[in-house]
């Protein structure tokens, strides 16, 4: 079975631009979470979606938004890019209802975003 897939793998943007990152969860998984991993740090939670509804949001500005589609794939959008948005963006999926405490999250390979 295919794991979590993300596209694109790498992206270069300039300050002020907008970017859309895409994620396809493991087949049968209904919950998708997004994380930002700045170089040298652990991942930080951005969003969680379940059944197309936002179920959790981390401490990120409104420039960050996301959505989930009927097939459970998800997009992360970042507007008005700043240099500090340069990071690896990870998507994770889990199978259960809104990703309960015991649900394991399976990660994709990430999208490396560089903002110049």
């Amino acid at each position, binding site marked *: 079975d295919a794991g979590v897939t993300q596209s694109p793998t790498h992206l270069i943007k300039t300050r002020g631009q907008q970017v859309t990152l895409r994620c396809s969860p493991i087949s049968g998984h209904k919950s998708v979470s997004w994380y930002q991993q700045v170089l040298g740090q*652990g991942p*930080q*939670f951005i969003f*969680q979606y379940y059944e197309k509804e936002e179920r*959790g949001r981390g401490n990120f500005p409104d420039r960050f938004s996301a959505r989930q589609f009927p097939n459970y794939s998800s997009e992360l959008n970042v507007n008005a890019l700043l240099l500090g948005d340069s990071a690896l963006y990870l998507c994770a999926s889990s199978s259960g*209802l809104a990703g309960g405490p015991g649900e394991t*999250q399976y990660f*994709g*390979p990430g999208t490396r975003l560089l903002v110049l």
Partner: protein
Amino acid sequence: AQTVTQSQPEMSVQEAETVTLSCTYDTSENNYYLFWYKQPPSRQMILVIRQEAYKQQNATENRFSVNFQKAAKSFSLKISDSQLGDTAMYFCASKGYSGAGSYQLTFGKGTKLSVIP
């Protein structure tokens, strides 16, 4: 709010030896899980082992085991018979409630482990 602290930025171990990575956490929740994830240079985050907080027995997965000290809020990872493929960043994480019925992972800053031939 949850916090996870990994105090060892880098460690190294000889092949076939044993190494222990440290992690401490803080949470106000009663129902939580703890995880160790591995991120090799190829960057795909892989689950190594997980521990249910209400279980006193330490989790084991082949060469990987944890020492879970609930009162001390400590969750260390022991890797036995280290192999070259164990070279990676290791992240400790806790999972707690983030609202609207969902749970989020909170990660430490990671420990870079190098296995030396």
